[in-house]
């Protein structure tokens, strides 16, 4: 089972839900945790993994062999990203625009384009208790996170229950993280911001044909979370769990504590959440 945790809006509690679910599950299940928020990986603050290995991640960028190049301009012509330009007697490579598709080297008639690795970040792996842990960390100044996310997901272990902590938003990094999940948990909060971005995230999951359910974080007493519940009812998306708005939870978070550490009664709730996912996902 591959389970991703996403949200649209940032700071709604994706990492909190992913981490606590993983901790509750690991007692009886083999779990692998993938932190795919490679721009800002934060799950390690709570899982405190022992990192045993760190591997550099590279993308391929072109390097021109000037001795072979005839400056015919083919490489620039086939590059969809404008990462190459041929000007009188030289070829300019704009590596930050390159997606590493290989069109230039494949189609150069003189075989003058060689591809070389450019480091974009690291994948760190280790253990957190019984759990296998992996996280990607994009180097500062690198613009493209999808290749980093792919590098993390390439090491996904289908023999375990995989929990993916996704980045915020709804564009390519989220798609890359959530792709091929069996179920997607969408974490939201009962505000117009939370609702607006939940609608986007739910539409994204629907477009990708991934079943989803909602966790309402910072839920208020009384009728406060009605805007979320009404939306979920109208869209036929199940509300799987609520976590109340509680300054004590926010304070525990600020100390790097998980909900399970601060409020052990939640273990049962997260296990119930997982059971419900199993029922819906299958």
């Amino acid at each position, binding site marked *: 089972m591959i389970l991703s945790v996403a949200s649209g809006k940032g700071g709604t509690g994706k990492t909190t839900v992913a981490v606590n679910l993983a901790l509750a599950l690991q007692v009886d299940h083999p779990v692998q945790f993938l932190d795919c928020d490679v721009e800002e990986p934060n799950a390690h603050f709570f899982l405190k993994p022992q990192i045993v290995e760190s591997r550099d991640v590279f993308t391929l960028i072109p390097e021109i062999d000037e001795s072979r190049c005839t400056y015919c301009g083919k490489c620039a012509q086939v590059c969809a990203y404008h990462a190459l330009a041929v000007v009188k007697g030289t070829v300019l490579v704009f590596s930050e625009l390159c997606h590493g598709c290989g069109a230039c080297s494949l189609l150069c008639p003189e075989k003058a384009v060689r591809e070389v690795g450019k480091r974009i970040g690291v994948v760190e792996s280790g253990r957190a208790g019984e759990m296998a842990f992996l996280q990607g960390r994009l180097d500062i100044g690198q613009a493209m996170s999808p290749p980093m996310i792919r590098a993390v997901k390439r090491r996904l272990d289908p023999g375990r229950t995989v929990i993916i902590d996704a980045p915020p938003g709804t564009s390519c990094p989220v798609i890359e993280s959530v792709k091929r999940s069996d179920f997607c948990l969408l974490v939201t909060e009962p505000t*117009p*911001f939370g609702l607006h971005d939940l609608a986007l995230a739910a539409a994204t999951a629907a477009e990708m044909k991934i079943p989803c359910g909602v966790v309402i974080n910072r839920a208020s007493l009384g009728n406060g979370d009605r805007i979320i519940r009404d939306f979920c009812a109208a869209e036929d998306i199940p509300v799987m769990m609520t976590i109340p708005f509680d*300054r004590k939870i926010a304070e525990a978070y600020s100390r790097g504590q998980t909900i399970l550490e601060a409020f052990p009664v939640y273990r049962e709730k997260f296990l119930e959440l997982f059971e419900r996912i199993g029922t819906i996902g299958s």
Partner: protein
Amino acid sequence: MKQVVVISGKGGTGKTVISACFAALSRNAVLADVDVDASNLHLLLHPEIQERHVFKSGQKARIDAEKCTGCGLCLPVCRFDALVEDDMGRVSVDSFSCEGCGVCFLVCPVQAVEMEIPISGEWYVSKTKYGPFVHARLGIAEENSGKLVTEVRKKAKEIAEREGRDLLIMDGSPGIGCPVIASLTGTDLALVVTEPTPSGRHDMERTVELANHFKIPTACCINKYDLNHNNSDGIERWCRTQSIPVVGKIAFDPAVMESVVRGIPYVEYAKNSSAQEIRDMWLSLSNLLT
């Protein structure tokens, strides 16, 4: 004209609430929401849309099943696992994986691949009671958010120059990747909004490092600072070592959430000490910009 962008690294630290307050406190600014992925500023500014523009960017491959002979030449050259072969040897494109490089199009011997430019979003020029507002909506599951950010910024700058406005206030997105870089480059100041949590601190440090990389000056705001005084002190000490001014410390206040629910910029909703703190921060920031 000066440009200030509000960013944070970590999501949910309060960028939009603060940006909306700045909009309300400003006198002669253009406003822009450069979080095109999950934009929220319009929920507090209530824009009246005056212009709509289609945003087209990037391309995706599509395979014409009639023309495809199933030769399979395209399969090994796709670096993005975007080509899927069925049991009958027919190839189709997984559009979520396709990055539009066009290599399949270039190698196909029978021209069965077409490259299409889908509509990937919309952007708007609006009127608000605080000034002109440029915002956007990236299509569901689309890419190129950085290019849409650039588009929004270009329009906002154009309006500022045309109308003689002296400030551009931009509400940024979380992270440090392409949309953030697109919103950061060439600005006069980045306000980094953080919170006194391990992730707030860590993400702020990465964001400051990113701003340094592009030589953009930063200032820091610690939101919900009283949730953890130790961590807040730590952030202040760190900022001092980096010579980053801490221009605001805002207390954790459930009234902020109420103001968002009501759709009102916080400085107009509440007159308490945290609202005053935001006013003071606006003054400090204005001083840094002059």
